[in-house]
C-alpha cells in the first residue's frame, strides 16, 4: 500500500495435466504391479507424483519432484523392520485370554495410531524436501514425535467432546505443519486460528445434533405421525451429514490456506463447497456405472460359459469348470479380484485425487510475489530414505 510503484499482480496457479494422461500412467503402473510382485508400486508412486508436480504451475514455473523410487523402497524396508515388533505383539495378544487379548490389541492399535502421526509428518517432510520450485527446495523443520503426540492428544480430545474440539485441533495441527514449512530460507507463517472455521463447523455440528435429537425424540414419543417424522428426519439427517463434509472441507481449506504468508508474499485459495460436492457426485456416478459394467461383464461371461458348455444350470456349469483345473481357476479368481480392486482404485485416483488437486492448484494465488525473488536456497535433502512408515501404513496419498 505504501509501495512506490504499483505492486506486481498476484501470480496464479494453473494445472495443465489431463485425466487421460494420468490414466495412462496409472494403467501402466497397475499392470506392472503384477509381474513385479507389487514392488513396482514405489515406481508408480514416483511417476504419479511427477505427473502432479510437473503439471502444477505457479506463475509459469512448474513444480519439480526430485524423489526416486529406490528412496521410498529402502524407506519401506526400514519401516517393515519397525513393524515386526508390532506384528508379533498382535500375534502374542491373539494367543492370550479374551480380556488380555482385547486390552493388548487395543493398546497396540493406539500405539499404531500414535505412530501414524509420526509417519505422516515424516512423509510430508520427505515430499517437501523433494519438491523444487524455481530451483529452490521446500523443507520442513519441527519434530515428528511432537506432532505425533499433539495429533494423538487432539484426536482423543475431539473424540471425548463429540467433535466439539475439532476447530481447535484443525488449527493447531495446521499451524504446526505450516509454521514448520520452508521454501528455501523463507518460512511460512499461519496467521489464522480456530475462529476461522468456528462458524461453518459449529453451524453444521448444531444442525446435525438438532436433527439427531429430533429423530431420537420422535422415535421415543409414540405420537400419531411419529413414523413419518422419523423417516423424513433420518433422510434429512443423512443429506445434511453428507453435505457437511465437503462444506467444512471447502471452508477450512479456503480460510486456513488464505491465512498463510511467506514473508511479504501472501497465499490465497478459494474452494467452493459446491465444487467438492460436484466432485463427489461425479465420483459416485462413475462408481455406480463401473459397478453395473462389472456386473454386466460377469453375467455375460457366465452366460457365455453356459452357452459353451450347453448347460443351462449355470451354477453347475461354473462348478464343473472350476473343478477342471483348480490352479488355473485360482489364477482367474485372483486376476478378477485384482482387476476389481484396481478399477476401484483407478476411479478414486481419477475422480477424487485428480479433481481435488486440480481444484486446489487452479484456485491458488500468491500476492506480492516480488517478495519471493530474494529467497535463497537452504537446507539439505532430508530424510535420505523415503517415507517408509506412511507407505507401510498405506496412507501414502499423493
Amino acid at each position, binding site marked *: 500500500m505504501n509501495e512506490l510503484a504499483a505492486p506486481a499482480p498476484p501470480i496464479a496457479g494453473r494445472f495443465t495435466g489431463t485425466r487421460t494422461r494420468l490414466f495412462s500412467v496409472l494403467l501402466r503402473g497397475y499392470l506392472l504391479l503384477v509381474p513385479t510382485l507389487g514392488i513396482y508400486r514405489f515406481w508408480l508412486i514416483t511417476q504419479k507424483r511427477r505427473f502432479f508436480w510437473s503439471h502444477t504451475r505457479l506463475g509459469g514455473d512448474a513444480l519439480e519432484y526430485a524423489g526416486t523410487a529406490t528412496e521410498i523402497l529402502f524407506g519401506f524396508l526400514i519401516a517393515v523392520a519397525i513393524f515386526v515388533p*508390532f506384528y508379533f505383539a498382535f500375534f502374542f495378544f491373539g494367543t492370550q485370554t479374551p480380556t488380555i487379548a482385547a486390552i493388548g490389541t487395543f493398546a497396540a492399535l493406539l500405539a499404531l495410531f500414535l505412530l501414524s502421526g509420526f509417519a505422516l509428518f515424516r512423509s510430508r517432510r520427505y515430499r517437501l524436501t523433494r519438491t523444487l520450485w524455481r530451483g529452490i527446495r521446500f523443507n520442513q523443520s519441527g519434530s515428528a514425535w511432537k506432532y505425533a503426540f499433539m495429533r494423538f492428544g487432539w484426536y482423543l480430545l475431539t473424540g471425548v467432546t463429540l467433535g466439539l474440539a475439532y476447530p481447535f485441533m484443525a488449527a493447531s495441527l495446521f499451524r504446526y505443519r505450516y509454521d514448520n514449512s520452508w521454501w528455501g530460507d523463507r518460512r511460512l507463517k499461519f496467521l489464522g486460528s480456530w475462529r476461522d472455521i468456528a462458524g461453518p463447523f459449529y453451524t453444521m455440528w448444531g444442525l446435525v445434533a438438532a436433527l439427531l435429537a429430533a429423530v431420537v425424540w420422535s422415535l421415543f414419543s409414540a405420537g400419531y405421525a411419529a413414523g413419518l417424522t422419523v423417516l423424513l428426519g433420518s433422510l434429512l439427517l443423512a443429506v445434511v451429514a453428507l453435505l457437511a463434509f465437503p462444506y467444512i472441507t471447502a471452508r477450512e481449506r479456503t480460510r486456513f490456506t488464505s491465512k498463510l504468508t511467506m514473508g511479504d508474499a501472501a497465499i490465497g485459495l478459494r474452494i467452493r463447497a459446491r465444487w467438492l460436492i460436484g466432485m463427489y457426485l461425479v465420483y459416485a456416478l462413475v462408481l455406480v456405472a463401473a459397478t453395473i459394467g462389472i456386473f454386466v461383464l460377469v453375467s455375460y461371461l457366465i452366460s457365455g460359459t453356459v452357452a459353451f458348455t450347453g448347460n443351462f444350470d449355470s451354477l453347475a456349469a461354473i462348478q464343473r469348470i472350476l*473343478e477342471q483345473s483348480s490352479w488355473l481357476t485360482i489364477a482367474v479368481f485372483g486376476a478378477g479380484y485384482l482387476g476389481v480392486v484396481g478399477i476401484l482404485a483407478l476411479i478414486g485416483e481419477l475422480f477424487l485425487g485428480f479433481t481435488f488437486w486440480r481444484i486446489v492448484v487452479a484456485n491458488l494465488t500468491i500476492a506480492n510475489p516480488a517478495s519471493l525473488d530474494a529467497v535463497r536456497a537452504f537446507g539439505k535433502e532430508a530424510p535420505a530414505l523415503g517415507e517408509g512408515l506412511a507407505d507401510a501404513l498405506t496412507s501414502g496419498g499423493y
Partner: protein
Amino acid sequence: MAGFAGRFHDGEIGRPRPVVAEVSTGGSGTGFLFVRDAASGGDVARWACAELYSIPSDRSSLRLGSVNASPAARLVVEGRDAVAALTAALPALGRFHQRNRARQVRFLVVGTAALGVAILAFVFGVPLIARQVVALVPPQWEAELGARAAGQVEAIFSGGGALARCDTGPRSPANQAIARFVKRTLAGAATPFEVNVDVVRSDIANAFALPGGHVYYFSALIEESPDGDAFAGVLAHEIGHVVNRHGLENAIATAGSGLVVGMLLGDVTGFSVGAILGQALINSRFSREAEHAADLFAIETARRVGFDVHALGAVLRQIAADTGESRVLSLLSSHPLTEERAVLLDASPVTGAHAFTPAEWRAIATMC
C-alpha cells in the same frame, strides 16, 4: 543456430531469469550449452553437453541440469517445437535417459527376483522353521495356549452361553469307551500331552484338535459316521495332530506367513482381503502336509490298535460330497480332502478288527 528462449534457475536464488540458450557442437561430441541473459546478453552458464541430464517433466517442457552445476540449477525450455529441436541438438541426453532407464529396470528386476526368492524360501522354509521352533516350546506353555484357545473356541461356538456338551458323565459307557480308545492310541506315541475329548452338539460335521490335547468332536460328524471305525479313524487323526503338535506349528507358520504377505502387499497390518487370501493360499500348503502326517498317524494307530482305517476315507469323502467341496476350495481350505489322502487311506492294510464293540459304538452314537 537460433537460440532457445527459456527460464533459468541458478539453484541459489528464487528469482527466475529469462535466458536464451544456444548449443555449439564442437568436434567429436564435445559441445557446450551456452545460457545467456535474455535482456543483457551476458553469460549466465556454460554447460558441457556430455554432462547434461534431463529431469522428468510434462511433455511441453524440457528441464535440464548439469552434473557440474548446483544440483538444483535448471534451464527450462517451453513449447513442443522448441523441446523437440533442443532434444535433437543434444543426443547425449537420450543416452543419459537410456542409462538411467536401464539402471531402474535392472534394480526392478533384481528386486523382484529377490522378493520371489524370499517368498519361495518362505513357503518351503517356514514349515521347517516352525517345526524347529515348536521343539523349543515347553509342552506346559503349549497346554496353557491350548486352554486359552479352548476358551475362545467355546465363546465362538456357543454364541455366548455354555457349549452344549453331550453326556458329561466321565463314567458313562460312551465316555469310558472313548477314554479307553484314547489310552490305547497314545500308548504307542511319545507325547507329554493328555488328550481330552469333548463331544459337542452341533449341526456342523467337524472335529478338531487344539494345541495341548483338547479334541472337539461335533455331533453331526458322529451322525455321518457309518460305524465305530469311522469315528475311531477321525479321532486317531485328530490325536495325530496333538502328538505332532500341529496346532502350535500352524500358529507359528501363520504368524510368519502374515508377515511376508504384508511385505508383499505393503499392508503390514494384514487387514486387507488380499492379505487374508494370500495368507490362506500359503498356509494351505502347510496344512496339507499336516493333514498328511495326521493321516499317517491314524493309519499307524489302526495297524497297532487294530481297526479298519478305510472308514476314515469313506467319511471324509461323504463330508466332501455333502458340502459340495470343489477342488478349488480344497486348495484354500484348512481341511482339504485331496485325492492323495483318499488313495493313501484306501491303500492301507485291512485288519478285520474293530475299535469299539457294537455296544460301545451304540453308546457313542447315542451320546447326543
